[in-house]
């Protein structure tokens, strides 16, 4: 008896069957022209997921706007997104649901041509299987290769090649065989092992749920049968135990558990685990759930684990089997898919989220980018929206990881912009560049505090930022002269000077500007370590880089001095004649004209040069230093200079 008959005859039996159903998540790859919407609509329709009210709407819509001459247009079931696209609403992935007697299905449908890479990678990231759709009349196209490459990149092992519109090629076996042969060579190149090719017609329903009488030469399963029965690789369960600690569960003093989702492997009470990156070891005592303690927890389950020993574990730590440890590193080789309109800037700090851990990271090198259509490797200085690159990335603290190909949940990460909070990239870790645990910082006895004290001052950075011609260097020079007169030890890093030496290899592109500031920030950190009051005078137009400099130093050591001169005023002064040249188009990427200046939001000191002379400004800054105790007891005299 058909299980669906049980609904009417024996609902309890039906519920029992349904209760044990599995779940398959899959993605359909293809463009509208390949008949993707029609196929998904057909799957929903054939699995009886369409209610009568929806069907009535579908029938009337098919007559009104359908493309099938009044016949049911299945595409209309899923094309509710067209109107939204016109309104400029970004849709990355739409999720559809249907179920049969054997499984429930979640389909990730990714519309859009321009955003295809970003959308497909997003949809594929949670999929167990991919259906790559193509038009039998057209064969293997550039886009087929692109979709296949992305599927392989994201590591989906179950691949169906659905050769659609067979009705339009007279159900020709020859056509089908030729496409399969063409595709085989390419599939091998990108590492697909098992690809099932099925001749279908989404429109006519051939080989969707019923074996088609028009393709007697095809002996394989129908698409639905394959989706219902394909064995999902068990590699997450056979992989070593891993669980990111999401939350430390402490209802009272007697209970301390670690809540998380087992992302791979199996764990049982008594098993030895290690917490990383701290590397402390203990044994599992209980696996706690509200439904009672478990004898074992397997990949996919959300549980709370208690340990024998009181070891220090917090959110973001990885619990791993002590017998099969993940790597721990702070420099990686990785693949990055860029998903933001704002391009990647190497050197700029981003948030990196891996598992439940969020840390600062920056891309140190772009080795190459990949042309998704030809798989060619190209040199690159940045990655733009939808570009894929092979990069080196460095994180501020060592993190535990497995290569993405071994474990998606301990090798996949996202990058988040620290200013906008947008998710800007998806990444896949490949391997550690060197063992971070081999590097130890030498703790020296003669340190910053001692060196500063010897000089009778507190070391700090005065970071002067502002437009070209705002008066940064003039004011910074005056401040340094006064500090010198007070017997203080200083050093000045000036934009122009540093660019003639240390940074002579850098230009003025956004990427180079970031690197320029990064180097200066690192140098000023060393200067502070040497105990100096360091004056940095750089346009430094981007908040993110000023923040990078700030983050390198300790609280209170970084004083942002905003020389606030309106653009019109700076342009009027134009001491070096640069604005004139920039306006004439002779200088590219000129801050304020053709490149943005991001005003500081909360500078420690703001100097309005339209209300203050350079001398007043210098005295004003000195008083701010004194107020903060940076001059250690020295009192700056009242400003007696007559106001300008």
């Amino acid at each position, binding site marked *: 008896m058909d299980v669906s008959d049980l609904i009417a005859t024996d*609902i309890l039996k039906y519920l029992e069957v349904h209760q044990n159903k599995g779940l398959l998540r899959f993605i359909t790859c293809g463009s509208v022209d390949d008949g993707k919407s029609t196929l998904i609509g057909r799957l929903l329709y054939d699995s009886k997921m369409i209610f009568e009210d929806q069907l009535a709407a579908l029938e009337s819509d098919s007559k009104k706007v359908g493309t099938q001459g009044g016949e049911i247009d299945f595409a209309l079931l899923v094309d509710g997104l067209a109107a939204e696209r016109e309104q400029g609403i970004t849709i990355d992935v739409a999720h559809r649901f249907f179920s049969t007697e054997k499984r429930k299905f979640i389909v990730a449908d990714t519309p859009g041509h321009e955003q295809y890479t970003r959308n497909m990678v997003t949809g594929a990231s949670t999929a167990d299987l991919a259906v790559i759709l193509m038009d039998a009349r057209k064969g293997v196209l550039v886009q087929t290769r692109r979709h296949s490459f992305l599927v392989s990149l994201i590591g989906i092992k179950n691949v169906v090649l659905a050769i659609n519109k067979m009705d339009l090629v007279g159900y020709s076996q020859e056509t089908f065989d030729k496409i399969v042969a063409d595709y085989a060579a390419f599939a091998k190149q990108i590492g697909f092992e098992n690809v099932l090719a099925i001749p279908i017609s989404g429109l006519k329903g051939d080989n969707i749920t019923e074996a088609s009488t028009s393709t007697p030469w095809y002996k394989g399963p129908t698409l639905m049968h394959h989706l219902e029965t394909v064995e999902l690789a068990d590699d997450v*369960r056979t992989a070593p135990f891993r669980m990111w600690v999401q939350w430390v569960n402490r209802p009272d003093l007697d209970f301390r558990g670690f809540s998380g989702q087992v992302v791979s492997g199996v764990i049982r009470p008594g098993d030895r685990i290690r917490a990383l990156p701290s590397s402390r070891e203990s044994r599992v005592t209980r696996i706690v759930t509200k439904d009672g303690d478990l004898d074992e927890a397997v990949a996919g389950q959300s549980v709370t684990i208690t340990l024998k020993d009181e070891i220090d574990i917090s959110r973001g730590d990885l619990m791993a089997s002590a017998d099969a440890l993940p790597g721990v590193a702070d420099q990686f080789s990785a693949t990055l898919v860029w998903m933001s309109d704002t391009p990647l800037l190497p050197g700029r700090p981003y948030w990196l989220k891996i598992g439940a851990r969020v840390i600062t990271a920056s891309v140190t090198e772009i080795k190459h980018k990949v042309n998704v259509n030809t798989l060619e490797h190209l040199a690159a200085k940045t990655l733009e929206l939808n570009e894929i690159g092979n990069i080196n990335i460095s994180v501020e603290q060592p993190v535990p990881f497995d290569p993405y190909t071994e474990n998606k949940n301990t090798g996949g990460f996202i990058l988040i912009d620290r200013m906008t909070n947008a998710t800007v990239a998806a990444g896949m870790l490949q391997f550690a560049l060197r063992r971070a645990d081999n590097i130890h910082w030498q703790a020296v006895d003669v340190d910053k505090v001692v060196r500063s004290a010897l000089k009778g001052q507190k070391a700090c950075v005065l970071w002067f930022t502002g437009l070209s011609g705002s008066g940064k260097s003039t004011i910074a020079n005056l401040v340094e002269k006064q500090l010198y007169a007070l017997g203080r030890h200083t050093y000045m890093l000036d934009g122009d000077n540093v660019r003639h030496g240390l940074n002579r290899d850098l230009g003025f592109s956004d990427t180079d500007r970031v690197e320029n500031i990064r180097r200066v920030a690192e140098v000023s950190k060393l200067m502070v370590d040497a105990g100096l009051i360091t004056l940095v005078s750089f346009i430094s137009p981007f908040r993110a880089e000023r923040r990078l400099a700030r983050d390198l130093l300790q609280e209170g050591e970084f004083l942002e001095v905003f020389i606030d001169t309106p653009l019109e005023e700076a342009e009027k002064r134009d001491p070096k004649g640069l604005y004139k040249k920039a306006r004439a188009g002779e200088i590219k990427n000129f801050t304020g004209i053709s490149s943005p200046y991001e005003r500081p939001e909360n500078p420690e000191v703001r100097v309005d040069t339209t209300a203050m002379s350079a001398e007043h400004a210098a005295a004003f800054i000195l008083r701010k230093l004194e107020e903060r105790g940076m001059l250690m007891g020295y009192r700056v005299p009242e400003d007696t200079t007559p106001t300008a």
Partner: protein
Amino acid sequence: MAGLTNLQRLEAESIHIMREVIAECDNPVMLYSIGKDSAVMLHLAAKAFYPSKPPFPLLHVDTTWKFKAMYEMRERMAKELGFELLVHKNPEALAQNINPFDHGSALHTDMWKTEGLKQALDKYQFDAAFGGARRDEEKSRAKERIFSFRSAQHRWDPKQQRPELWHLYNAKKHKGESIRVFPISNWTELDIWQYIYLEKIPIVPLYYSAVRPVVERGGTLIMVDDDRMPLLPGEKPMMKSVRFRTLGCYPLTGAVESTAATLPDIIQEMLLTKSSERQGRVIDHDQAASMEKKKQEGYF
């Protein structure tokens, strides 16, 4: 995860999502609508943090027009599961006695629910709110993310929504901004019922058939839940065996004639009945694409 059943996978995913929010947000709240989806969400929250109590309060944005049986269930569930319960009623709507009979469903919903929700979120400064919406409810929800970002003015800005990769949710936000989180996004109506059945989750008795007083208005059966309901001249409540597929404000919620008195009966009826769930909601009939518009305005 090959070995887990569909429901086990869904349960684990929802728990994972809730724990991420608790760990990454400062002041989360769970919106409680008292319906079956809310019941499942509450049940999952109790599991997610056990043996701790769920570390956030429940918020019911009350319209004063819910079914009596819903208010009873609300008090009972908050108590049994150990939640702090916050109830917010828009004081302006209260002062003006806004109701669906005199003001129509659109204004009623806007004042009590949309405005009421914004007021409550502002009042308590919540930065994350769990909601029980599901992607299978209607076509336009299929594209919803699990973490949905709102500006400081509670607006949903399509351009600010973030791609969701793997199970990595980005909960970073600026001060004043907030997130609506939908932990049961991937559940279908059948999953919800199946889970309620399996886990013996208490639901409002209105979901079960009983003989109730109803009147028929514009083809919809409306239950006369209290004496605030103005009867039209000559209109007399009829006693019919009815139940509800969704619950909301009683004057805006259509009943269906049914004899399904147990959970398996309900599920059987649902599977055999060929009309989609939202049909019983009067609010959706008001205008096409109405959910989309309501979302931009701040309604769920």
